[in-house]
């Protein structure tokens, strides 16, 4: 596979993405330079694409991804990997708000911290954050796993429908209708296997697995006090 270089600078994003797609179509591995934290870089890329963004990128990097492998050298803005169905996104720095929002599948790996609402409305796949996840992470997620190695800020896993939030490290507070449960050994093995695959093997982690308490799944008059909170 040959390598191609695309330079962003102050060019129109439409032109940049067109050039990225053309280079990918020729079977290149693409390196994107001078990214200047621009928004909407690498949106809706074809399956099997490989590309790397130098520096930092803005909002929606790798949005609607369906099978591309994307690496960002530094930080990402809001909603990295939004609605990703498959593929892999690696962020070497920090992520802003709503990382992996409404994600359906694939893997989003953030080496630093993730901002608020990480994995909000998530429907599947895995979000792995080596640092801490921000407040309201996992808000109203349906399925999938959010794994945070550096703890969680407030209202963690608020109003989960389903899915799991795994936290190693302190949790500032749990969100409404979520509860910490004891993970099964095979579930821990599955999480550790994912981590080992990312070079993060460490058998000594003290996991807290958070799931929906299912109190807000149904309208019930006896839960009127819970109702006042949503």
């Amino acid at each position: 596979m040959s390598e191609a270089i695309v330079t962003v600078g102050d060019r129109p994003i439409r032109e940049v993405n067109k050039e990225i797609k053309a280079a990918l179509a020729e079977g290149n591995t693409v390196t994107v330079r001078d990214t200047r934290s621009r928004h909407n870089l690498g949106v809706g890329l074809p399956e099997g694409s490989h590309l790397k963004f130098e520096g930092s990128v803005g909002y929606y990097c790798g949005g609607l991804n369906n099978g591309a492998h994307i690496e960002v050298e530094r930080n990402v803005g809001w909603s990295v990997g939004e609605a990703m169905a498959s593929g892999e996104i690696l962020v070497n720095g920090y992520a802003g708000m709503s990382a992996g929002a409404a994600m359906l599948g694939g893997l989003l790996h953030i080496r630093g911290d993730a901002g608020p609402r990480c994995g909000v409305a998530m429907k599947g796949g895995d979000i792995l954050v080596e640092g801490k996840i921000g407040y309201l992470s996992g808000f109203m997620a349906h399925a999938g796993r959010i794994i945070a190695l550096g703890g969680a800020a407030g209202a963690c896993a608020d109003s989960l429908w389903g899915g799991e939030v795994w936290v190693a490290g302190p949790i500032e507070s749990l969100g409404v209708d979520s509860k910490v449960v004891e993970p099964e050994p095979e579930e821990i093995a599955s999480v550790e296997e994912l981590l080992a695959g990312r070079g993060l093997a460490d058998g000594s982690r003290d996991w807290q697995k958070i799931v929906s308490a299912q109190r807000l799944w149904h309208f019930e008059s006896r839960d009127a006090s819970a109702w006042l909170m949503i």
Partner: protein
Amino acid sequence: MADDLKTPYEYPFPAPSEDAVAMVDGGVPDRPAGVPSSYDRGDSVSWTPESISEIHALSRLGRYQIRGFNSFNHRLPTFDDLTFVPATMTRLPLEGYRESCDTKTVLGGGSGMVEKPLELDIPIYIASMSFGALSASAKAALGYGASKVGTLTCTGEGGMLTDERRASKTLVYQMTPSRYMLDLEHLRMADAIELVVGQGAKPGTGGLLLGMKVSERVAGMRSLPLGVDQRSTVRHPDFLGADDMQVKIEELREATDYQVPIFLKMGATRPRYDVAIAAKAGVDVIVVDGAEGGTGASPELLLNHTGIPTISAIRAAREALDDCGMSGKVSLVAAGGIRTGTDAAKCLALGADAVMIGTASMIALGCNSPRYFDDYAALGTSPGKCHHCHTGLCPVGVATQEPELEERVDVAAASERVARYLTAMTMEITLLAKACGKSSVHNLEVEDLRALSMQASAFTGVKMAGIDKVYSW
């Protein structure tokens, strides 16, 4: 806060039975507490059967009431508060029975950003209603009926149904805050994308689908646990304000390669400002859904007490676009309580480029039709007054996920009814347009209307009949 869940207050006596709370003792089965028809009407201005039954219902449920259909607030004006003033001496009419009147409607062609604007044969289309709220057979029938007359349907919140994509020649894919099963593949199969920030029935609040309708298929499409009372988010997961939405719109254009228009649907609350901001955010089509807008399920108070009337919203929205120089660049669609071609023509005259019908199209499918009387009775209702979409037990199969009920929508016949109804509505619009001397339905204008009440004039800026002046607009 979450701790409140773990430490409920305990009475110093045993918990009452649910029957006792519901005041079943001494009652009769056909006059249950909490239903207006169980009560006789007295003279109190405050304590009417409606308000008394409401309190009995709330004190039983411990939550707000939920129902489908649309507003029961009789203070809302209707389209009947406006009348047309056709050509007479100052203007020349066209031959209503003979001459042609153009009904072609283009949505999303004004910005020059979009490769494939939507070209419709008529200025009416079918509103976004989800599979989930509606049955698969109802969705398919709407798709076929709309396709026959050259217009579009919209997916609604529940994701893209294969039956509907097959049935509907032109399909708008709705992107609600909940994003049920939204992915790139479906986006690229759509002819347009609609970002939803609100709806007329319950502006400021997310979608609602009660557990009875969250069937295996619906739950699968929405990746929800089977049978949960689904209460959707109202804020989008990946942006907050209008400036962020502008970036989101660019993302959607990138993902769909600038091929399809982007719609934005809002409930009518402050359209003069909301529409201006939406236009600035860069959408191609703005859908303003008035307070009369319908729904499959909503907290009742939001249906009755939020939003502004459709007729007033259209005028404010059009003026906003005019003021921003965006008329012609952004298309304006009006919705909410539109029943006939006459209502639709009034919307066009007030400033809409097209109208969207939801409940009316359900009624064409068979909603509230006089048959299956026992099944209506089992819901405590009857044809003509049924608003029980939320129960999932729709007697005519339109708003249900029960297989045996769903079969009551004969797809072939229902498709044909929808097609004929849309055709009839279009004829009604052209008849009025021609009477007003217009060779295109899009030439209808505010001057073609007069208001029949000061209130309607004040709501719309339409001149009062008689004095020919606008009441304080």
